[in-house]
């Protein structure tokens, strides 16, 4: 059974965000092994896990849809530069519109309807009460720039990467729920430039291999990987721009509240070749789950304890867990007595 969008909850201030039992069950748990290690852990983005799984559809729409769209509009109201598209990315933005509208209308016909009469398109989003008619490819016929228009109707962050010189460049994006990175700072950077701060992986040649793989991704053959970090409170917008609002919350974790305060933050990242522009669409769909909810699954609790225990120090620092990592390990150890 697929989870239906529920009433609006908050990712800030009073943090009313919760996961239903169904949402917990379908959470994309990111640790396949007891030891954590880096790998280019990519696989084809084809359906997996059956009906209702987070991997069932090309774009995952779940119970948090309305809440995340509200949160996105709050971020963009304060900081419009969290969405940008360089001029040469206009066609890529339209590729994204086509890819997303077509797949949403096919996968969720109860929520989204697309009618195409040549280049005259009518798009209806029943969840957000949107209905617009526009000319495909003509940005002047939309109520706002094409990437922003589409991004405001999609869960997760989206970037469009221009491919040239055998490299990928971050030339467009709508980034309102990043795990501590800034679109304004990374805009225009190449693949190796924006991965500059990642520890350990550079010497292992991972990025060279990943780039060779990514630049060869073909139309109609999207790939996905999971990434993860941790966040204090159910805060979607952990951007450098708002660091003053959330950075200090790391000091609020205590042995008593660690289970409810600390969230595992999982990114389902999908890379998909855009046909007209040859750009890559990079979507980052974020799932937040409190440790309390994680440990409701005994297998996850055990696995996560072992991963946290063996996490290398440079990664603890890079992911910003230094202040509370010990408390997380202690908390999880009660569910993994053998270790």
């Amino acid at each position, binding site marked *: 059974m697929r989870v239906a969008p529920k009433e609006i909850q908050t990712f800030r201030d009073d943090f009313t965000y919760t996961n239903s039992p169904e949402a917990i069950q379908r959470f994309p748990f990111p640790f396949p092994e007891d030891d954590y290690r880096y790998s280019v852990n990519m696989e084809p983005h084809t359906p997996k896990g059956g009906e209702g799984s987070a991997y069932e559809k090309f774009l995952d729409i779940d119970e948090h849809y309305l809440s995340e769209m509200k949160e996105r509009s709050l971020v963009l109201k304060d900081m419009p530069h969290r969405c940008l598209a360089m001029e040469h990315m206009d066609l890529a933005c339209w590729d994204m519109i086509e890819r997303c509208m077509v797949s949403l209308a096919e996968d969720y016909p109860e929520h989204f309807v697309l009618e195409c009469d040549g280049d005259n398109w009518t798009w209806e989003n029943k969840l957000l009460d949107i209905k617009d008619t526009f000319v495909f490819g003509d940005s002047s016929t939309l109520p706002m720039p094409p990437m922003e228009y589409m991004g405001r109707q999609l869960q997760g962050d989206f970037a469009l990467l221009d491919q040239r010189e055998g490299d990928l460049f971050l030339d467009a994006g709508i980034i309102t729920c990043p795990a501590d990175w800034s679109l304004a700072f990374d805009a225009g950077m190449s693949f190796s430039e924006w991965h500059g701060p990642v520890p350990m992986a550079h010497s292992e040649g991972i990025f060279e291999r990943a780039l*060779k793989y990514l630049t060869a991704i073909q139309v109609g053959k999207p790939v996905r990987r999971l990434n993860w970090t941790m966040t204090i409170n159910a805060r979607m917008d952990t951007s450098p721009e708002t660091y003053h609002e959330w950075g200090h919350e790391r000091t609020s974790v205590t042995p008593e509240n660690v289970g409810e305060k600390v969230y595992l933050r999982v990114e389902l990242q999908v890379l998909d070749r855009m*046909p*007209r522009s040859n750009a890559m669409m990079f979507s980052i769909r974020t799932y937040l789950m409190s440790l309390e909810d994680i440990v409701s699954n005994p297998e996850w609790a055990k696995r996560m304890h072992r991963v946290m225990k063996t996490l290398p120090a440079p990664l603890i620092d890079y992911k910003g867990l230094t202040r509370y990592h010990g408390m997380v390990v202690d908390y999880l150890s009660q569910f993994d007595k053998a270790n």
Partner: protein
Amino acid sequence: MSGDQITVVVSAIEQVAPSIREFTLTSKDATLYPFSPGSHVVVEMQGESKTYKNAYSLMSDPWDTDAYKIAVRLQDSSRGGSIYMHEQVEVGDELKITPPANMFAPEWGAKKHVLIAGGVGITPFMSYLPELMRRDADFELHYLYRGNNTGAYKAELAQELGARYFGYDSVQGEKCDIATLFAERLLGTHFYICGPESLIEGVKSLADECGVPASAIHYEEFAAPQPGMPFEVEIKSTGVVVPVGAEESMLEALEAAEIEVPNLCRGGVCGQCVCQVEEGEIEHRDHFLSGAEKAAGTAVMPCVSRAKSKRLVIEI
């Protein structure tokens, strides 16, 4: 083969020059993907004794999802693929193609685009032109050809592009002065070259002399794999030994032996089919590996490169 193949039907064939045939391909079941200018598809041809796989540039409007067009020149040293396309393929036949892939996309940040085509090298630019015009981009096309023999489409191009078209017929002794093109370029101009290797090498070395940055020079050469001496290739992990005939590429021989090697362009450009070399001497013929990598002798592109020694031991 990487990528799901698409079955297409040949809906029209036109002899556009004495040695060049144009094929219109329409989809059998699903609609075709739109594509980006400069894309190619790999066409699979079921010959009597072997399967041919040749890459051809798409030359139709990238927004047209009803049909793709390719042009095939009958190669003097054809290993069978272009002969097959010219002699065997008829209207109504089915062919298998890969989805479009692109190793030769326009640089949309360029202030101006200068396209230089040699003969049948005009094909990728046929898909550039509609998009350049849609974007109202600043561009010019320089078309070098040999009389009617390789000068397909010249009349329609001249008419459509007007002052942005420059044709050079070598039979008439007309020459394109590329050094002057470079010298008079606007800052931010990008140059795109498609044609025989001699043209590409000539333009590249001139660019170097004229101080044009390498990042502003883009080229695509669909070098069909050239024949050579027969040799054997051994897969180290399995011990399987595959003979490679004089007229086939190492990649084709491996595929015929049902050994899967990821690949995209089959012309020594994309880098997908690179294999580690454990033993043996390599004759490098690709444009992907750097000079240092070639000198190291530990990697080979089986789509075009061969062995100098009798046996090459590789790992896929």
